[in-house]
């Protein structure tokens, strides 16, 4: 994969527009060219270029930094995908489920584009570009813990959107018991009020 393709892929998801992404990538490359003495030979050039891309995007479109989300606070629910039951999850990842696979392929970019920017960028840098948490924290200018939280929330929202879409299309059934991995259900005491309420409202 050439760096040009990488920058265009990430730029397209940041701007959600091919034309704007092309302008952004051109700006990025000229900046990189002018700043090339600051690149440390032997370090990750792709990560360096992506940092310039991100900063260029923020300076150009988002004077105050990336679009924040009201969801970007302390994570209240450590049970990540509590809203997807185990059998639903199996339907979603089942490679034999052609309908689900087609949905993933078709809808995943649209679902990604709906995420708030901070989550979207974290997910793209990690899942698409496979950068390390440390590299992402340098690019986004935030601590590693924040990267992890953004990634977690971004992925959770992404799954939620795909799940909702799959529900609409009738590919998966309604959620069964929310909040509990299948084998935990039997005999487990309710550990806090919010999961008690969830359990109660789904009963």
């Amino acid at each position, binding site marked *: *994969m*050439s*760096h*040009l*393709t990488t920058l*265009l*892929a990430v*730029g*397209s*998801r940041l701007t959600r527009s*091919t034309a704007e*992404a*092309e302008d952004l*990538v*051109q700006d990025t*490359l*000229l900046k990189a*060219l*002018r700043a*090339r003495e600051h690149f440390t030979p032997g370090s990750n*050039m792709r990560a360096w270029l992506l940092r310039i891309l991100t900063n260029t995007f923020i300076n150009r479109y988002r004077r105050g930094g990336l679009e924040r989300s009201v969801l970007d606070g302390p994570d209240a629910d*450590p*049970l*990540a*995908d509590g809203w997807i039951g*185990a059998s639903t*999850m*199996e339907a*979603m*990842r089942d*490679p034999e489920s052609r309908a689900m696979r087609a949905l*993933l*392929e078709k809808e*995943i*970019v649209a679902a*990604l584009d709906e995420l708030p920017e901070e989550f979207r960028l974290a*997910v*793209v840098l*990690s*899942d*698409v570009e*496979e950068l*390390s*948490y440390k590299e992402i924290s340098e690019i986004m200018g935030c601590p590693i813990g924040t990267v*992890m939280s953004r*990634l*977690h929330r971004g*992925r959770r929202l*992404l*799954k939620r959107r*795909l799940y909702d879409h799959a529900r609409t299309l009738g590919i998966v059934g309604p959620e069964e018991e929310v909040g509990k*991995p*299948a*084998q*935990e259900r039997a005999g*487990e005491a309710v*550990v806090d009020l919010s999961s008690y309420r969830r359990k109660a409202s789904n009963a």
Partner: protein
Amino acid sequence: MSACRRVVTLLDAYADGELEPEHVLEMEAHLADCHGCSSRLQLEHAMKKSLRRQVYAEAQPSEAFQDRILASFQAEAEREAVGKLESSQRGAMLSWSSIVPLAAAAAIALFWSSHTDNPVKAVSAGNSDGNHASILNVEQLLDQIVDRHIDRSKPEFTEPALLDGMEPEVGVPVHFPSLAQYGARWQGGRIVPLHNQNGTLNTASLKFLVDGHRVTVYVYNSERLALGSPLKRRVVGNEPVYTGWKRGYSIATADRHGVGYAVATDLGEDEGAEIVASLH
């Protein structure tokens, strides 16, 4: 706290290969036992894979965009060269030595780190079928261009004014190429016939020395001879050119309004591209 609840908070880090080693064993033991959590992990992997594939499927740089980027690099390189020139006043050779490495470094870093180049491209209607035979045919022509580049026989003439006289034999106007900005020394010219299965075509061969390196410029009728197809397309200062290597010599070609230019050199690919782009 249940095992799943504990593990779920670490699952992202595990899937990303970032979990501390002391937790990995615990995680793997749990995944082996817990169907729910191993489903979660598989869903994470499936989503990553789909994301990667789909994000890239929607972001292939168009040829027009690649040309635009190359042109903007070239413009930037020229701006820098002019800046250096103005501050140092050291003459034209500086632009040669600074433009080429910068543009080359940038182009290599951005475009040719990938192995998915698309080098096969026909240059004109004469070769538009693009089949294997015609590519072989062009390889033979490139061979002859190299043969005549390294041929040490004496030129037919050394008087630049005689170039005009080549026009009837070559079939296109032949002007004296100004390679002064590269410090080129004129060696002389001759008519060189190139042979392929369609017959023979006369070209004007013009020899120069740049800093002790041989540079041979060929001028020919590009409607009867298309030399682009096995070479790589690139853009130098807004001009599309084709470059590549043949037996250790760099070859660059360009087409200007039906007049073909090919440059065979002992220099590198970028220098050849630069020279051919300056011809018209």
